[in-house]
Each structure stands twice: as structure tokens, then as C-alpha cells.
């Protein structure tokens, strides 16, 4: 893992001191709320329905146990004893007092954490593959580039007042766990035939009111030119992105208006003029790369006796392994996903005790490494299969052993009307009702991979556009209604879902999802996921089933 040096630490200390002064001015009445708002937003502090919400950055979703314990401590000390992991691999505290925030930022800084650029029209937290450094699929470690981008984007003098927020994702594996194609910039690490490292650059993906899948504007960008190319993209966007209407201000609108080819041409022309002086020298890249040097893995047999014995004797363990444990690049190890989607709970929430339990496991069995996924779960990327039965037992004791990764109850949901000032409708309780329908783990496994994503308003924080089943809360004359979409995906086969039909009232949503799943089970061919069946049959059988049911 990257360790902050003196420079990184002093940046956080300076930022924290600056914010403390701004809060003091606000509390003393020297700053009005409208003047304070942009300042607090630059530090991830939102004013929500009931309280302030503080969004803490977890760069590329990577945490060490000390950091996770500190988050638990903050949750217990300043919040109601829990935190909420988000679709940007961040963590939100929803019950914060303004006067406490400078102290909280100091506590975060003490473990090399911060809330810089977790909101505002700037470059946000960089998303990266949560399996980085652990999966055999990747051709390079994307964290090297994500960390370099974290530094480059931090307090960038030219790009801190963009037309709108700006999100970058990077992956180095063919299976995309970052939703790269629905980011403002999606980077996929590629290797040229001659072995040279580079990136495929996709631009203009996004969700919100007008969802787009990103367009590739460069098939291969030499890796050492990344930062000059990013500056060129951001500069074209900063100059030409729309500023007259915040709903049309994201880069996706500019790319769509110009066409990807013309946008690419403008970027290339700008890039030529930018030159290489902003690119990172090889020595700095080597320094960062050194921080992500491969762990010291043991040479282990591919088959673990303890693990096999537990699988044979404990069906719950076997189920956990089937759904939550993924292949590791080293024999005898596994990647363990920890579901924060226990049926009946709020998707993405973790109590302080649960965070501490995960921190303990990472320390004892997981090489001090923890990741957050954009699907709001946690990952222990390096666990010996020999230790897996102990890890599972500890997770079970902490209420974290739900064996539902990628299944119907592994739902992404935004905070919705329970917290958010923008929301039209509740998301969390809809997720809970749907999850109940799949509480029987045998049924959930029979259904297989099914990505349900729920947003409480058109801003699409719950990524509904790219759900296999997407659910969007809308307000109809003061009542909560929900529009369903089918066939979306945020992965390598990215697509925007299509509308099923008229919006449904709150109390019909879970039943409708149940009907959609039953229709899939009836229609599916061997080996098809819900998404595959939908793509083969189209919307007709699903629509018929749901609306026949309603009438």
C-alpha cells in the first residue's frame, strides 16, 4: 500500500487548518451559509435533511486496518455508531455536527485520510478495481496510476471549478469492476504488442438524467503521457463544457454534442500544445510503483485441506465460498468479498463494531489490506484458504457473512428520501423489501447473478440506469412512484437499461421485481444470467408479466 510521505501529510495538515478557520468564521457569523457552502462542499460536507453529512475519501477504495478502525471510532464518537459505504468507494457519516468537523478532519489526517474533493465541481475520488494486486486477470496494478492521479488531481489549480463534477475510473482487468464505461473518463490499462504499457481512454460516460456509455477517444495512450493527456481532456472540457444549465454540464453532454471524433480531435490538438512537462517523471512513477510492490505471498498448495473439509461439513461455509470468494493470483489464496447487504439492513451500512471486526481480520489474516467496492461491499484481497474457515466464523459472529455477492439481494441503493435533500422517494426500504423476497439463499442462488440498483431521484447515485433491474424513485403529486428499467449494465458489457412501462407505486415494487425474476426463471436457457435472457427475449415477456399482475 502507498504510504504518505512528509509532503502528503503536510498537504492534509494544511487543508485541515484551512477548513478549521473557515468553520470558525462560519460559527462566529463572519460567513453566511451561501458563502460557506462552496467551502464546506470542497471538504465533502453536505447539509442534508436532518444533519450535516461528511463524505470521507477512500482513494481507489483502499484502506489499512488503522484507517478502518479510525473510521469506526469517528462513527462511534461523532455519529450514531455507523458509517455508509458509497458507490464511489467512499464512506459517509450522516449525523455530523458542524462544530465537530474540524476535529474529525484532524483525526482523519492522523491516519492519512481526508475529505478533499469528495464533492464540488472538481475531480472526485478515483475509482479503481477493488481486486487490484490480487487478481490474476490484470496486466498491471491500477493502484499505481490511481495514486498518481490522486496526487495530480488534489487541489489542481486549473480544474477545481469545472462546469460540473468529474469522475475517473481505472481498471487493468477484462472484467470491469469499476463501471469505467459510465465515468467521465474510463481508463483501461492495455499492453501493446511490443510490450509497452498504455491506456485505452474512454470519455463521456455517465448516468444522471441523460445516461451515456463512454466513447473510446484513444485506443492506446503511452502510459508515461497520461497526465498531459488528462490535462488536455480537462482543458477542452473546462473551456467548452456547458455552464448555463447544471443538468447539461457534464462532459458527456459536450462529447455527445461535438461527437466523439471531433472531441477527440480537439483533445489531440490541445495535447500537442500541452507538451510533456506535466507528465510524471519515471522516477516518481517508480517510487509510487514501489509502494504497491507484490505482497510476500507464501508458496502454498493449490488445495487447502482445512478449507476443503469445512466446505464438505458446513453448507453455510460452502455457500459463502461459492458466492463470496474469488480466485486469487497465488495458489492457496482467495479474494474474500464481505457483503454489506445483509437482508433487512441498509445497503452499504457498517457499524463501528463491524468495521473493527473487518480491521482485525485484515490484520490477522489479510496482509493489512482492505478494499471498498463500488457496489458497496468490502474486500479482503489476500486471504490464505487455510485461514478461510476462521475468517468466515469471525464474519458470521460480526453479522457479516451474507453469502449474496452479485445475487439479487446484493443491491446498490442511494440513501434516498431517508437522508437526502434531493431525493423524491425512499430507496433503502425498497431495497429491504426486495431483499426479503430473496432471503431464502437457495432461491437467490438459483436465480444467480442479478444486479438490482435503486436511485431515489434522477441524479442516479444508485446507478439505476446500469442495473440489470434498475429502479428509479419519482414523485407523482406527492406520492412515491418507481420506474423500472431492464437490461442495463455497468460492467465491460455496459448498457443503459430500457424502461419496462408505467411507474409503479411504492408497495408494488418488490412484487414486480419478484415477477420479473419468475419470468426470467421461466424463460431462461441453460447458463443464461437474467441480463442474458433479457437481451435475448427483449422486454415483452417481462412487461406482460408485471403489468398483467398489476391490473
Amino acid at each position, binding site marked *: 500500500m502507498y504510504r504518505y*510521505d512528509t*509532503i*502528503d501529510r*503536510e*498537504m492534509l495538515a*494544511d*487543508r485541515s*487548518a*484551512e477548513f478549521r478557520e*473557515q468553520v470558525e468564521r462560519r460559527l462566529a457569523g463572519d460567513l453566511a451559509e451561501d*458563502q460557506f457552502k*462552496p*467551502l464546506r462542499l470542497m471538504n465533502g460536507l453536505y447539509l442534508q435533511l436532518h444533519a450535516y453529512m461528511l463524505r470521507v475519501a477512500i482513494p481507489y477504495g483502499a484502506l489499512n486496518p488503522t484507517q478502518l478502525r479510525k473510521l469506526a471510532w469517528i462513527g462511534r464518537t461523532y455519529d450514531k455508531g455507523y458509517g455508509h459505504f458509497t458507490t464511489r468507494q467512499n464512506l459517509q457519516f450522516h449525523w455530523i455536527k458542524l462544530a465537530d468537523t474540524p476535529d474529525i478532519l484532524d483525526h482523519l489526517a492522523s491516519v492519512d485520510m481526508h475529505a478533499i474533493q469528495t464533492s464540488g*465541481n472538481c475531480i472526485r475520488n478515483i475509482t479503481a478495481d477493488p481486486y487490484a494486486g490480487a487478481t490474476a486477470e490484470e496486466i498491471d496494478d491500477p493502484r499505481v496510476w490511481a495514486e498518481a492521479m490522486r*496526487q*495530480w488531481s*488534489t*487541489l*489542481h*489549480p*486549473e*480544474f*477545481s*471549478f*469545472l462546469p460540473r463534477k468529474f469522475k475517473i475510473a481505472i481498471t487493468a482487468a477484462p472484467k470491469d469492476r469499476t463501471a469505467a464505461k459510465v465515468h467521465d473518463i474510463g481508463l483501461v490499462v492495455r499492453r501493446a504488442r511490443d510490450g509497452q504499457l498504455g491506456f485505452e481512454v474512454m470519455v463521456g460516460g455517465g448516468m444522471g438524467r441523460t445516461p451515456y456509455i463512454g466513447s473510446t477517444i484513444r485506443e492506446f495512450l503511452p502510459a508515461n503521457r497520461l497526465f498531459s493527456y488528462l490535462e488536455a481532456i480537462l*482543458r477542452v472540457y*473546462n*473551456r467548452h463544457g456547458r*455552464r448555463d444549465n447544471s443538468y447539461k454540464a457534464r462532459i458527456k453532454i459536450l462529447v455527445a454534442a461535438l461527437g466523439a471524433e471531433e472531441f477527440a480531435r480537439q483533445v489531440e490538438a490541445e495535447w500537442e*500544445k500541452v507538451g510533456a*512537462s*506535466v507528465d*510524471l*517523471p519515471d*522516477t*516518481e512513477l517508480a*517510487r509510487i510503483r514501489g509502494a504497491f510492490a507484490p505482497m510476500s505471498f507464501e508458496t502454498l498448495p493449490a488445495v487447502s485441506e482445512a478449507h476443503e473439509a469445512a466446505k464438505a461439513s458446513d453448507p453455510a461455509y460452502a455457500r459463502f465460498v461459492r458466492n463470496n470468494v474469488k480466485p486469487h493470483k497465488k495458489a492457496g489464496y482467495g479474494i474474500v468479498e464481505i457483503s454489506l447487504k445483509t437482508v433487512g439492513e441498509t445497503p452499504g451500512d457498517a457499524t463501528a463494531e463491524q468495521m473493527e471486526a473487518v480491521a482485525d481480520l485484515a490484520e490477522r489474516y489479510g496482509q493489512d489490506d482492505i478494499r471498498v467496492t463500488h457496489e458497496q461491499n468490502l474486500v479482503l484481497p489476500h486471504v490464505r484458504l487455510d485461514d478461510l474457515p476462521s475468517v468466515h466464523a469471525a464474519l458470521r459472529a460480526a453479522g457479516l457473512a451474507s453469502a449474496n455477492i452479485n445475487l439479487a439481494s446484493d443491491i446498490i441503493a442511494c440513501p434516498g428520501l431517508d437522508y437526502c435533500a434531493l431525493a423524491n422517494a425512499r430507496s433503502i426500504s425498497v431495497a429491504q423489501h426486495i431483499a426479503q423476497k430473496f432471503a431464502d439463499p437457495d432461491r437467490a442462488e438459483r436465480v444467480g447473478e442479478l444486479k438490482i440498483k435503486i436511485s431515489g431521484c434522477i441524479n442516479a447515485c444508485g446507478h439505476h440506469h446500469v442495473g440489470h433491474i434498475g429502479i428509479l424513485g419519482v414523485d407523482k403529486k406527492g406520492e412515491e412512484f418507481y420506474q423500472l428499467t431492464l437490461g442495463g449494465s455497468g460492467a465491460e458489457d455496459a448498457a443503459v437499461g430500457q424502461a419496462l412501462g408505467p411507474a409503479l407505486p411504492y408497495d408494488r415494487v418488490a412484487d414486480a421485481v419478484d415477477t420479473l425474476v419468475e419470468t426470467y426463471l421461466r424463460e431462461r436457457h441453460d447458463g443464461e444470467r437474467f441480463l442474458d435472457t433479457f437481451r435475448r427475449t427483449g422486454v415483452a415477456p417481462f412487461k406482460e408479466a408485471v403489468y398483467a399482475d398489476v391490473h
Partner: protein
Amino acid sequence: MPTYIRLRGGVFGLAEDGFTTVADDEVLPPGDVIVSLTRFQADGERLLSEGRQVGVRIASDEAVEALAYDLPQIAVVALEYPKFRDGRAFTSARVLRERLGFKGEVRAVGDVLRTQAGFMVRCGFDAFEPADGSSVEDWDRATRRFRHVYQRAADGRVPAFEARGV
């Protein structure tokens, strides 16, 4: 005479503004003036031939490249912030300094706030007309806030990636 904040040789100070900013429908007064890009394109040559100093005010949706060939004769480029959230002038300032090699004054005008002081200086601004009542001391403090920077920009500060290599 109105005053504004100026950065010279790394030191912030209050300066008297010898320039009159003239709107397009106003009659030109004698002396040094700042005019719009449109007016400069129409009357610039005549104004310069009259022996006065001329500055040009660039709206946030105008490209500073339009001045490329006139810059050696221009004393001030005033970049407008219609709202502090409109960040186009940051790009304009960098292009002026880093690409077009402008050595004259780059002045921030409009909705100019001390909270943006650090960014403005990094992008090459050296003159400021604050809209928030902030003082020379406020600007000095705001730009000294951060001991390090992560990027190369127009101010010549050594970015972290270079400092680490030393």
C-alpha cells in the same frame, strides 16, 4: 483612485489602479484604459498609437488566443469571473502565461474571492480585484496556506514529484 491587490516579486501589495475600465457604450476617457476584446479588435491599433497603455478585458467565454499577436503591446489582460464558480479564467491565465508567454499583468476581475487566491496565483494571475472585501493580508495568507503543490502550473512552484526527486 481605486485600488487593487498586486503581486510583484512574490509580495502582495495594494496598488493604485491607473487604468480606467471602459464599457463598450462609453466614450473613451484620456489615459490608460481597459477595453473589451470587441472594442480592442476595432480600435486597438488607434489606442496604442496614441501612446497610452491599453488593457483588454476577456469574458469567460472568449478565447485569450484571440490576442496572441497583440500581447507584446498589451499591458493588462483582465480575465472575468462572472461567478466564482465559472473556472474558465483559470485556463485562460495558464494559456496566457505558459503558451503565449505573456509577461504583462494578468488581473482577476468580477466575482473574485480570497478562497480562490491560491488557485489564481498558481495559474499565473498577478493582480486581483476582490469582490469579498478581502485585504492584502488575507490574500497573502491564503496563498501561503499550502506548503506543497502536486502539479506543475504557471507559477514556477516545484511540484511534489520533482521535490521528491532531489
